[in-house]
Structures are given as C-alpha cells and as structure tokens.
C-alpha cells in the first residue's frame, strides 16, 4: 500500500528535534535501504525506522523521536500503520 506524502510527515516530525537535518537523514536512510521515496510502502516503514535510528544524532533521545514520528504517521494514516509496521 502506497503512502502518499509520508516524507513530509516524517520530515515534519524529525524537524522538531533536528531541524534542517531531517531531509538529509531521510535521504540517507532511503539510500541505505536502497529504495526511493515513491517506492516506500506501509510495510517498509518498520525497517525504515530501524535504519533511521542509526542516522539520527546520538545526543538526542532517538527512541522518543522515533516514537513521535511513528505517532505522526499513525495519526496521518490511521491505525493500519501500527499493524503493518510491526510486521515490517
């Protein structure tokens, strides 16, 4: 299932803590996963989060930030994401 506009949601949540670094971190994560922005699907978000964790600065509370990103995505795309991302 495609998730249109997911990048804006994730970048918005990340920007709350890392500002302009958010887009760079997303690009690096996608590059590491070997997928493009358009190819991203709900089932892949779990893996995306794991890769994203390693790209975030260590001095911030990365778990908390990922939790916030996850909440933003859940709010945007309803609870389907929670189930699918757990599978991913």
């Amino acid at each position, binding site marked *: 299932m495609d998730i249109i506009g997911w990048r804006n949601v994730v970048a918005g949540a990340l920007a709350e*803590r890392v*500002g*302009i*670094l958010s887009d*760079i971190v997303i690009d690096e994560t996608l590059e590491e996963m070997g997928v493009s922005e358009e190819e991203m699907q709900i089932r892949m978000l779990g893996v995306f989060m794991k890769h994203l964790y390693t790209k975030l*600065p260590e*001095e911030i509370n990365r778990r908390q930030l990922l939790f916030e990103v996850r909440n933003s995505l859940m709010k945007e795309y309803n609870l389907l994401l929670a189930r699918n991302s757990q599978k991913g």
Partner: protein
Amino acid sequence: MLSVRSKLTIVFSIFFVVLIAQFALVYYFSNTSAALISRTIQAHEQSNALTRLAIEGQKLRRYEKEFFIYADNPERRAKYSSEWNDSYGKLKEGLALFNTPRSTWSQSDKEKAQTWNKSLNAYASGFNKVDVAVNNGFINGTIAANKAIQDAKNQFRVFLKGTAVEINNKVNEARDFSSQVEENLANIQKFLIALSVVALVIGGVLLLTIPRAIAGPISELTESVVDISKGNISRPITVRGGPEVKGLAESVERLRIALKGLMLRMHKLQQERNQGQGNIPSNKPKEVA
C-alpha cells in the same frame, strides 16, 4: 515558569492595585473629613449664634436691673426701658432665624428655640406689666418692682439656662467633629505609610528578581550562541527561563544539532574523498570530534 509578559503583568498589576488602594483610601478619608469639617464649622457657627443670644439675654437682665435701680428716676428708667426693648427685639430676631428656609438648625434645636421663645415672651409680658405699673405709680421703689417681676424672671431662666447648656453642647459637638477629622488624618497617614512600605518591599523584591529572571536566561543563551558562532557546537544548550526564552533556546539547540550533523557528514564525505584520492590529511573540526 512564568513568561516575561506574565511577570511584568503581575508586577504592574500589583502596583496598580496599590495605587488604586491609595486613591480609594485618600478619596474616602478626604470626603469623610470634608463632611466633618463642614459640620465642625456649622457647630461653631451655631454656638456663636447661641452665644450672641445668651449675651443679649444677659443684657436684658442687666437693663431690667438698671430699670429697677432707677425706678424712682423717670429719665434713667425710660433709657433702660428703651435699651431693654432693643435687646428684646434682637433676641426675637435671633430666635426667628431658627425657622428661616436656609436654617441649618436641627428639629430638636428648633423645638428648644420655641421653648426659649415662650420663656422670653413670658418674661417680656411680665416686664412690660411692671414697666407700665412703675410708670403709672402703681409700684414704687426697687424692691417692690423686683418682687413684681420675680415670676417672669423665673420663667426667663429657661432661656438663660437653655442657651448656656446648648452653647456647651455645640462646642462639644464641634470638638468631637474636629477629633474625628484628626483621627481621619491620622488614619490616612497610617494607611499611606503602610501602603508605601508594602509598595517599597514589593518593588525592592521585584527589582532584585525580575531583571535577573529576564536578563539571566537571555545572557546565558547569548553566551551559547556566541560559542556556536565561534565553532563550539558540541556543548548542548541548557534551557532556563520563561517560555519566550525557552522557545528561542530550543530553536537554537535544534540549529546546533543540525549544524553538528551536517559537519559530521561533511567530515565523513571529506574522509571518503581523501581515501579515494590518497592520503591527504583531513581538516576535521575540533568541536565535532
């Protein structure tokens, strides 16, 4: 933590309340004092009017005595009879003032004046009878004349005693009002001193705390920003102070984290490039390490 705006609002509200309280107290006490002062003046004026009546009453008695002393001397008798009538006329005028439209006398005073008027009338009637009798030779000599007027004289005592007592009452009333004015002034002084002390204490405490509370976090944040601008991006910005400064500090911290992340990536890219090209030394920033 309160915002700068809230702190300033509280400070100015406290001073506003103190000012309002001062204004209200001064207004209340000055109004009360003004009313008391006008009542004091009124009591003094009434006591003066009563004193004039009492003096005129005593004059009446003196002329009556002189009249009887010279009962056998028609000329002197006529002179004192005339003087007596003048004073009597003044007394009647004075008593009539109790019932004028602009009169400031109370109902109780007016009732007393009526009693005095009756007493004066009775005395006048008695004196006139004796005067006619003396003039017509029915009464001869001072002792006989004195005896003849005794009843009328006794009735006039109501006037003399009444005015004397009332003068004292009015003087005491004026004194009481003056004391209340003095008390009011003392109260104003006490309240103003108390409010000034409260304002000074609050002002002093705020003077010591507010500027520090506002300027402290801003100068700390300025120091952190100066550090970042000089390249020291590893020290996290500790946030202290009100919401305005906190919001600004959070934004600067976000910029610092982003800047640090960008520099790390630049450094990584540089290293990768160096490795590709050979062993060219890197210029890794000290702060990032």
